């Protein structure tokens, strides 16, 4: 039997609620002294989707892994009950586990680029569960693989099956990964962050795929940090935090009438058109939303003026790629210009040209109306301090040998008022730290030891140190959890209101962009397809691509 047929064969009526397929009660997991899951209970019924939501370290992934007996080395799992289809999973031996994995429970990890074996053909990967569970002959399995790929909507499956994962686009890859998970059409499907690292449009398609499995009456457990994604899929939502489920219930209820303050905070933290102009972090429960009031933007003289920026690369194989194609924009004092686009749209390249770290093939950038990219390296050096940068991964932008303090002092020294003495340097650094909401004792800390949020704050502090007029933010929050992201975004807006600095803000996340930007630049394949006032673009998108993006965008409101 192959998934293709049975998949269509057994549709389950989603109306009446059947008996639970999975029943977990009082699950506790500890690694040595650290207890990472503390008494978690939930059930999943066939044809329904349970979403486990939480931020990193909340224990959601470990919980999921436990259901396939892959909790990890040295894990200590105890529970009042872990049942699958009425069988007690706690008493299973390795052999029994293996018979369940893949056949009874399918598992989808995030980011197929690393979750599929890059050295093997897609077909072999997809069909592996069949081989492992001794289904069919080589030829039959090969055929099945193609069918499966077709079933998950991979175009020209015969070809794809013979390719290797890295030769497929992110979306197709993720589909292939799902295909292999449903190869034996297991009654339970676990998806751990199935759409993270995917562009919105692809994200939507992948979610549809999972939805379809659900329609076929398969139970679905989805692990995600992204509430909006959850909103689209889940019948039932469980919110996890530090190894506990703080709140669970029907999706509609949890997402719209959250009981627990943490859930509420999470929901508020999600940036979107609604959150525009307000802080994402509520001061305290019940208090009114703080709106930001800001001086009107003077659009007479741009700080940054990009004219017809173009970047062309010629690969070693002599294939010419135009990465950025005739991009022009102006950034005015105190303003935030958002550049949004999917991976490979040329956002970052544009940013690096704006920073004059990359020579444009054509066009130029003016800084305060004066030539910038046109200058020689040496001439630029003296002006560099006027334009700072914050990267997505701050850690890699810190010299691993340097302490926070040294990083900032170094940055200060490039500013207009380099500190005269060590004392002054320290004093000003501490002030900087305070400005970005870090305590003075962080001065001697090694960035490696800081949390993601703290690192990004240090990065921002470093960008601010030379008192620049412009800061280029390249995906500054993409690697952060919702709540941390909220804090960082708030920090950025506060600093803007306080210092009147302009941001060239780059992100793939439409919500974030909408929340932050005054004006927006939508990029696709190196071109600007649409630009204009943020609300304008979001409410009345002109370009079909923009429209497509916005429809694909999962929204909390939509649920």
């Amino acid at each position: 039997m192959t998934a293709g047929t049975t998949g269509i064969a057994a549709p389950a009526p989603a109306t009446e609620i059947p008996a639970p397929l999975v029943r977990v009660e009082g699950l506790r997991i500890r690694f040595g002294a650290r207890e990472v899951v503390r008494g978690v209970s939930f059930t999943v019924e066939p044809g329904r989707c349970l979403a486990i939501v939480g931020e990193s370290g909340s224990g959601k992934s470990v919980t999921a892994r436990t259901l396939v007996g892959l909790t990890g080395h040295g894990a200590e799992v105890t529970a009042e009950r872990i049942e699958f289809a009425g069988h007690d999973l706690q008493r299973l031996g390795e052999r029994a586990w293996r018979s369940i994995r893949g056949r009874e429970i399918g598992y989808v990890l995030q980011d197929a680029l690393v979750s599929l074996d890059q050295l093997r053909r897609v077909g072999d990967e997809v069909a592996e569960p069949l081989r492992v569970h001794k289904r069919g002959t080589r030829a039959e399995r090969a055929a099945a693989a193609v069918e499966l790929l077709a079933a998950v909507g991979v175009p020209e499956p015969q070809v794809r099956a013979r390719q290797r994962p890295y030769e497929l686009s992110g979306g197709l890859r993720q589909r292939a990964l799902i295909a292999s998970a449903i190869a034996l059409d297991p009654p339970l499907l676990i998806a751990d962050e199935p759409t993270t690292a995917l562009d919105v449009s692809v994200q939507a398609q992948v979610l549809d795929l999972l939805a379809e499995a659900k329609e076929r009456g398969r139970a679905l457990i989805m692990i995600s940090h992204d509430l909006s994604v959850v909103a689209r899929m889940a019948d039932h939502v469980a919110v996890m935090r530090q190894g506990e489920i703080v709140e669970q219930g029907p999706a509609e209820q949890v997402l719209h009438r959250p009981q627990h303050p943490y859930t509420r905070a999470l929901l508020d933290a999600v940036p979107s058109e609604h959150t525009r102009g307000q802080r994402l972090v509520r001061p305290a429960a019940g208090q009114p939303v703080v709106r930001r009031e800001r001086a009107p933007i003077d659009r007479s003289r741009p700080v940054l003026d990009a004219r017809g920026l173009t970047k062309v690369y010629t690969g070693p194989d002599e294939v010419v790629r135009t990465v950025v194609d005739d991009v022009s924009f102006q950034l005015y004092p105190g303003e935030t210009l958002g550049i949004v686009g999917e991976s490979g749209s040329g956002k970052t390249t544009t940013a690096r040209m704006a920073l004059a770290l990359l020579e444009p093939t054509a066009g130029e950038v003016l800084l305060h109306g004066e030539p910038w990219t046109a200058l020689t390296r040496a001439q630029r050096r003296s002006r560099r301090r006027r334009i700072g940068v914050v990267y997505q991964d701050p850690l890699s932008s810190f010299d691993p040998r340097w302490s926070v303090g040294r990083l900032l002092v170094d940055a200060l020294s490039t500013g207009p008022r380099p500190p005269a003495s060590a004392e002054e340097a320290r004093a000003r650094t501490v002030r900087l730290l305070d400005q970005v909401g870090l305590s003075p004792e962080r001065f001697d800390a090694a960035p490696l030891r800081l949390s993601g949020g703290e690192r990004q704050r240090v990065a921002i502090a470093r960008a601010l140190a030379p008192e620049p007029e412009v800061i280029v933010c390249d995906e500054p929050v993409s690697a952060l959890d919702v709540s941390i992201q909220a804090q960082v975004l708030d920090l950025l807006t506060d600093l803007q209101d306080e210092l009147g600095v302009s941001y060239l803000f780059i992100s793939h996340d439409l919500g974030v962009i909408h929340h932050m930007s005054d004006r927006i630049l939508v990029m696709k394949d190196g071109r600007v397809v649409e630009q204009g006032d943020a609300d304008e673009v979001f409410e009345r998108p002109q370009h079909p691509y923009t429209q497509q993006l916005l429809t694909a965008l999962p929204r909390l409101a939509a649920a």
Partner: protein
Amino acid sequence: MTVLARSSSVALGRLPRPGTVLAGGFVALVVLAAVAPGLLTSDTPTQIDLTNALAPPSWEHPFGTDEAGRDLLTRVIHGTGLSLGIGLGATGVSMALAIVLGAAAALAGGVVDTLITRLLEVTFAFPSLLAALLIVAVFGPSVTTSIVAVGVGSMPGYARMVRGQVLAVKESGYIEAAHALGHRPWRVFRQHLLPNAMRPLVAVVTLGVGQSIVWASSLAFLGLGVPPPSPEWGALLDAGRGYITTSWWLAIMPGLVIVLFAVAVTSLGRTLQQRLEGAAR
């Protein structure tokens, strides 16, 4: 994921902790022997006593005595300084060459890079032993020759590594960040590029010392090493090999010392490597 990573780092199955401790102890002992042999033995390494030649290991002579009745342990201890010196010297030589060539290639790029890479290819294709043979043939066997020969022989490997390192660091975020702050290239090189590129090499160097000593002893085996009566380890081993069937200790003991030292240094080097990698990630 994080969980797996953490648990695995516990289970990392390289030399177990006690092993590393042992290694450290042994290396420390060797270094002591190198700087102050007098502390470990009272006899002189060249004290000849032909009447007591080829005595098997005993309390009096833990490593036995050689064909001239010299106490082998004493000779091993007194040879330490020389062997260690050769190991360090050779590694130093090769590292110096490697850093200059590798860094130059990586930084200059273009023609210089291609030229240097070609040169390295040549040296790679050139059996290091032949290099040693020629060097010794030109300058005659001596400590310096051994150092140079071994150093030159092991240079290309390091050079490639340095080049790779520098290239990697050159591309890294913090270098760009430093440029973005408007620092001068030289300062960026001095403050960020060089130190960070050299960091992982620390471990490599420790590994190198061990290998260099093994290498130098190989030269001795081919009669190209340090001339007698010097108690350099390789020379001892070479002198002893004729007696392996009759007086095993002459070949086994120095050999063991060499191997154990190399093992110790290697394990330390690897531990160090992991530390550094840990620090970098």
